[in-house]
């Protein structure tokens, strides 16, 4: 693990773009957490003295939205939700994907064939439609967003983990564990999964932006978070509605969303180049 941490640091040092991305990401995260503390506005408070859809000013740094709420605070508070959904959604898909892939890869044979065939069938489903449908039909619930997003994204993870597990299973230390009578579930938990961490971390980094994107997509359709709570996707949707009057309401959330996704993608690419031996250049 130490060596791995070392190579992550090396990877970042050798790639100034990735380092900049990491710094930007950290800055955005800290700003989202701490930024709202330093202004007097709350994300759902209406400024009755100011104008609605106001341009940026000393009073409202990003302007106000069509209801007269401070956009600086709303953008940052929305960012908390977007980033949190990204992390939790990734975690859900990670747990399902690693467990499924490790079991399929370790057990092998018919079970493996059946499990991966099921993944193939699920892959072919237009999942986003089912999610849209789910939201349209059952109303909007943040928990449902998590579950739906996590349930889609585990497929990739399961495939990657299965491949890695099959390679690991052929290694001597696994044979040694089998010979010394360690139970299969213990081998998977103690010998296979810890060795998968490198690959899993890399693909998790690339999953986070996908999840954030998906949440933004759903919120944009009005199917994700519900007012007065907000996320970047919901803010972009609001901003798009009256962009002719107040372009700031579209541009600031779009900027935050785009910058976060860009940083995460750049970081994930760099980590993959550095840590995943199969993706050498």
């Amino acid at each position, binding site marked *: 693990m130490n060596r791995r941490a070392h190579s992550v640091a090396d990877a970042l040092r050798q790639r100034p773009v990735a380092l900049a991305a990491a710094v930007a990401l950290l800055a955005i995260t800290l700003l989202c957490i701490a930024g709202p503390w330093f202004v007097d506005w709350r994300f759902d408070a209406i400024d009755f003295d100011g104008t609605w859809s106001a341009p940026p000013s000393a009073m409202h740094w990003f302007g106000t939205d069509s209801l007269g709420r401070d956009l600086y605070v709303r953008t940052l508070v929305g960012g908390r939700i977007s980033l949190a959904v990204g992390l939790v959604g990734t975690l859900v898909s990670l747990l399902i994907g690693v467990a499924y892939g490790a079991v399929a890869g370790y057990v092998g044979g018919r079970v493996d064939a059946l499990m991966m065939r099921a993944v193939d069938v699920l892959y072919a489903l237009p999942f986003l*439609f089912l999610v849209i*449908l789910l939201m349209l039909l059952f109303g909007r619930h943040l928990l449902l967003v998590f579950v739906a997003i996590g349930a889609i994204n585990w497929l990739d993870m399961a495939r990657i983990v299965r491949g890695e597990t099959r390679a690991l299973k052929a290694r001597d230390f696994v044979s040694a564990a089998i010979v010394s009578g360690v139970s299969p579930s213990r081998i998977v938990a103690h010998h296979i999964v810890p060795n998968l961490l490198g690959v899993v971390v890399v693909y998790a980094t690339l999953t986070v932006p996908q999840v954030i994107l998906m949440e933004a*997509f759903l919120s944009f359709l009005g199917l994700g978070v519900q007012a007065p709570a907000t996320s970047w996707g919901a803010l972009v949707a609001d901003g798009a509605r009256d962009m002719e009057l107040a372009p700031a309401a579209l541009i600031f959330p779009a900027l935050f*969303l*785009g910058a976060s*996704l*860009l940083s995460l993608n750049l970081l994930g690419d760099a980590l993959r180049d550095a840590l995943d031996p199969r993706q050498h250049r």
Partner: protein
Amino acid sequence: MTPALLRRLLQLLPTLLLLVTLTFLMLHAAPGGPFDDERALPAATRAAIEAQYRLDQPLWQQYQHYIGQLLRGDLGPSYQYPDRSVADLIGAGLPLSALLGGLAMLLALVCGLMLGAMAALKPHGARDHLLMLFAVTGLSIPNFVLAPLLILLMAVTLQWLPAGGWSGDPSQLVLPVLALALPQIATIARLTRAALLDVLQTPWIRTARAKGLSERQIIWRHALRPVMLPVISYLGPAAAGTLTGSVVIEQIFGLPGIGRYFVLAAMNRDYGVVLGVVLLYGVLIVVFNLLVDLLHAALDPRVRL
């Protein structure tokens, strides 16, 4: 038809059946029905309507009936527009959606290949870095963010292009196609660059260089085919992404395609239309994936179906 192809076609059926079943169950499990109107219908009228659409029957009978109907190639009636069938409604929206999606895919393929090749021919230079930064940026800006930004820039501020609507004027399609294509352009450019870099290091390219072929001949006659392989495999997911994206893009630009019907129909609990559209998308995606595999097999002699 070869046995391999037939087998592949048969393998599509469980996926589609699963899709229809899931959608069917979701629709019927959801609260509200197609005839829950704000003004209450007299009980007898309502019962008569529900009986006509078989909503009074047990769920499994409705399911059986629907599957039977599908097997006869009938998508059934719309629940909201009594005089129109689902096939009618889909037929009305499909040409525009197909035009939008087809143009976007074509643009993505052409631009993606070109930009990727431009980056790979002088790797690690300024042009390469700039193009790849552009590609990651393109990947990172979702099309529903790009679309309003494009409208803001091109329609509201510069007033070069119309902001939306559809009256048959091609200029109304420029922005939607662009918004839909950009993420795909970025992905295809990245794939092309990586594949071309790999291929240019192979012995057969070195041989071609040693023979004294021009760079143009090397690219077009020797490098292009292997480079196309990963790009072609990506076309399946790209088609799925374009279809999904078109739901939002049609909303934003006010285009009367099937994406808009889909959202409206789900809101109105129009079971027939929702199932029909989901099935159509499902069929399009699996058939497209199959075509991609066929093309792959045709281009790469090592691959078999």
